[in-house]
């Protein structure tokens, strides 16, 4: 781990260059001050506010809010949703990256654009599309009612909406990474007689494991934190179809601010853990494979 500590995440300015390409000290101080003031106002203060508001009425109120049965069922549902959505999008991400990075075919850039599509769709519309498919007036609505299958306002709808909004995460991390690594190692393994699956498990997977983990962490953070899309399909049934972010909204709208911020602090902690893991992996990747971000 010594390498992690010494390798900078990004290139530091070369100390030899200075003077002519350095701004006057006053300008530097103003720029640093301006940047830090902006970040403080828009990032750090809101983050601190979440924890301050959560603990405003003391630890006992905080812990009571978190041990509410409704809070627990929200936590369980969020974990369940992420446990289904993340592995599915992981498998998809690997398959998509293998197709796009390892082979040449027509329509590749179109496929790439389509994979990125869910990122440019408003979360509200990401929920709406499943209402149009599975809602009472939707395409499959009558059939579902006949067979007594509940998708909308139930767990399957929440999982589908989460799958949609977290769809591109793993794929878009893996594609540039695998493209930068080329095909030589896999080809060597095949020439030496390894089967396709064996090559994938023993050659490709070890090469992409950090990029994969990076994608999974981002995918998981979004899966657990998604609000708009899930809000549209959930139906807001307390103790049944409320995820943690929806529970935050309900508590907040009931003017139960301490409890809302207590539950929200769990999500803020998740965000901080996500950022810490992400930075750790970035330092690792800069060590081994510097091309993750595609800036060669």
């Amino acid at each position, binding site marked *: 781990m010594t390498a992690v500590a010494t390798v900078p995440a990004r290139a530091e300015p070369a100390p030899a260059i200075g003077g002519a390409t350095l701004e006057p000290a006053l300008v530097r101080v103003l720029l640093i001050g301006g940047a830090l003031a902006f970040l403080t106002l828009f990032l750090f203060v809101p983050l601190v506010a*979440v924890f301050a508001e959560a603990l405003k009425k003391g630890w006992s109120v905080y812990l009571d809010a978190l041990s509410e049965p409704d809070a627990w069922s929200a936590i369980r549902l969020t974990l369940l949703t992420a446990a289904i959505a993340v592995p599915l999008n992981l498998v998809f991400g690997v398959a998509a990256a293998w*197709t796009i990075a390892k082979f040449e075919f027509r329509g590749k850039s179109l*496929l790439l654009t389509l994979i990125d599509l869910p990122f440019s769709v408003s979360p509200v519309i990401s929920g709406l599309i499943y209402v149009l498919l599975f*809602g009472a007036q939707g395409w499959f609505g009558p059939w579902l009612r006949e067979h007594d299958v509940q998708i909308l306002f139930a767990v399957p709808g929440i999982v589908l909406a989460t799958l949609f909004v977290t769809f591109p995460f793993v794929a878009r991390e893996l594609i540039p990474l695998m493209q930068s690594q080329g095909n030589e190692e896999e080809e060597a393994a095949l020439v030496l007689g390894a089967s396709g699956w064996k090559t994938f498990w023993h050659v490709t997977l070890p090469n992409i494991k950090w990029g994969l983990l990076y994608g999974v962490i981002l995918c998981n953070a979004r899966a657990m934190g998604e609000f708009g899309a899930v809000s549209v399909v959930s139906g807001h049934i307390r103790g049944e179809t409320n995820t943690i972010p929806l529970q935050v909204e309900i508590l907040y709208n009931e003017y139960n601010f301490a409890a809302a911020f207590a539950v*929200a602090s769990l999500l803020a902690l998740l*965000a901080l853990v*996500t950022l810490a893991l992400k930075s750790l992996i970035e330092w690792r990747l800069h060590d081994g494979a510097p091309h993750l971000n595609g800036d060669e």
Partner: protein
Amino acid sequence: MHAAIAKSNPRRTALRVLPGFGLSLGFTLLYLTLLVLIPLSAVFLKTFTMSWEAFWATVTSPRVIASYQLSFGASLLGALLNVVFGFMVAWVLVRYRFPGKKIIDALVDLPFALPTAVAGIALTALYSPNGWLGRFLEPLGIKVAFTPLGVVVALTFIGLPFVVRTVQPVLEDVERELEEAAACLGATRLQTFLRVVLPTVLPALLTGFALAFARATGEYGSVIFIAGNMPMVSEITPLFIVTKLEQYDYAGATAIAVVMLLVSFVLLLTINLLQAWTRNRGLARKA
């Protein structure tokens, strides 16, 4: 950030030596079709059940027009704020040393990681008249929470990482020799910045702006808490879709969604073109 995606590998001479093309392509297309393409096409097919007049009347009703104005106007302001301060943050992170830089660099991605609902209630608590920041703004006559200004604040927060993260790698690649040359030829620091540095990072800056703007137009979770959601005043378009859905007006919700999707597609196309431009600039510099 993903500039390498569309770049083909010049060394890939042996086509389709590796196995699994059919399986992985088949699975990718099936999954994409079932999860993304069929559901998205439902939006367009649903609007075809409306008459053109009904569609047009829905998407141009005064309350919807007011919501477009707010959504796009506030997104524009938020993205512009992010261009100015995002560039400043990227510059400071790349060029200068100061304590806590690594942690600050990592925290720039907070708006990506923090669930939007949490951001929404935190900003509302801060800017409400008795909040940490609101209580100083109130005496000055500035109301942020429950006004369009609050929408701008939330959308600035949401778009913050985009400009920083697109400009940062380009700024790292800028050759300091060019700046030295400009200085040797007698240019002032400001001239060097305007004539040498700025043209190099301009495509990345525009890409970051477009990404932040695109994200902001669709944003829902962080805005609805701080906006106050008054019709005609502080109601964003995504909220209007939700309102229509809650009234079981599926056709109305879908019509507005189609307008938003078309805007998103145009923005996506613009972003792709801008990214290609950034990439070509980068390659040209290296050649």
